[in-house]
């Protein structure tokens, strides 16, 4: 059972439908016990960094996420969910994240339109089970205004270009992040989720 953490905002349904297509059981929850009992965790996310962290802290979810991840449970962060893994975000201020990964999120340079919205290509930085059987360049769907920087070089699996290098797939141990929306990236996105599922099972 995959626990999809529900902290109140955005479209989670599409993710559930995508997992259902892959015959993966999932439950949308904010119950710490359900998260503890789950085989893996997905932290989805659209919305503002601060609001998400406030909601996560108010529902006492930060501790359980950190404990489960420290114990080795796989966790996948999508979009804002990935950014929450890092130490800080400078989205409208300076906010502390979950600190599962080293780095921080800051605004995309204004030399390009913000939000970064639409289909952009991923360039692989390393061979990884997540991108297995995918072409060298492939399109996925992005919607975000902030991007991760100062991350550990060897955690970068794939990136895109948008006003600079934008980390798109990151992985370190049992922590995986996707800045784009795999559940909205057509067949390629489903394939990425499938690869991820096989990797952690």
């Amino acid at each position, binding site marked *: 059972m995959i626990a999809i953490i529900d902290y109140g*905002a*955005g*479209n*989670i*349904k*599409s993710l559930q*439908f*995508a997992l259902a*297509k892959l015959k993966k059981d999932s439950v949308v929850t904010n119950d710490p016990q359900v998260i503890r009992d789950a085989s893996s965790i997905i932290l989805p996310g*659209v*919305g*503002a960094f601060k*609001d998400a962290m406030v909601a996560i802290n108010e529902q006492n979810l930060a501790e359980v996420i950190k404990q489960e991840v420290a114990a080795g449970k796989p966790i996948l962060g999508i979009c*804002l969910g990935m950014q929450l893994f890092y130490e800080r975000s400078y989205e409208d201020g300076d906010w502390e994240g979950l600190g599962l990964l080293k780095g921080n999120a800051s605004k995309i340079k*204004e*030399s*390009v*339109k*913000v*939000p*970064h*919205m*639409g*289909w*952009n*290509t991923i360039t692989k930085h390393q061979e990884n089970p997540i991108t297995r059987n995918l*072409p060298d360049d*492939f*399109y996925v*769907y992005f*919607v*975000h*205004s902030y991007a991760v920087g100062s991350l550990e070089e060897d955690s970068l699996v794939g990136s*895109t*270009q*948008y*006003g*600079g290098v934008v980390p798109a797939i990151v992985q370190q141990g049992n922590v995986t992040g996707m800045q784009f*929306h795999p*559940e*909205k*990236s*057509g*067949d*390629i*996105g*489903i394939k990425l989720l499938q690869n991820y599922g096989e990797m952690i099972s």
Partner: protein
Amino acid sequence: MVINMLAKRIVPCLDVDKGRVVKGKKFQNIQDVADPVDLAKRYNEAGADELVFYDITASNEERDIFLDVVEKVAKEIAIPFTVGGGIRTVEDIHKVLRSGADKVSINSAAVANPQLIKDAALKFGSQCIVLSIDAKEVAPNKWNVFTNGGRNDTGIDAVEWAKRGEQLGAGELVINAMDSDGEKDGYNLALTKLIAETVNIPVVASGGAGNKEHFSSVLKEGADAALAASVFHYNEIKIPELKKYLQEEDIIVRRDN
């Protein structure tokens, strides 16, 4: 040099009335076209980058039928889609997002209450708040914002409203040129260009698509996406052929599946 491979988007738009897709010319003479879920699947397979659904009736009792359609679409397709029509409150937005929509398009309600854009952007994030502007030329190169399906001239300058929308927190603009809507004579290039150069958020051109060249022109003039309805519904333009053509025109489009 900044390398930017962000693809220009092709966006079929589906007007939905009581659970059916309809096509109106200049918002009148509405004709029934198809089941929205079937059509959405067809467009997804054809390589559409995104879809837009407008609930054109949006009375309270019909709202639930529409939300049901939204959920069915989310279940069937794995590309992003926007929902509009009858969105008046933060709670309305919450409902469509929870039903599986990725973005919400706000039109007349934002003119009546600009704070709605701000509140919604703060709550759900700018990336899912689309400001849709119905614009009509009232003097040479001067466009006003119209509301209520184009019946009411608000007297507000469309370019100023676009700028204001960005400041309020909209993450994308749909510019619907009412003069060209349904005419198939091409998008309003002047208006689209003017707004695309004024704001720093994505701009979706709408109204007037009749042939492949029209898409190419408006995307070259600065639109990030081009929206159309009847040319797709009636199969006058096939999306794979359109994208092949746009690529030959040196426009970056997604063609991998």
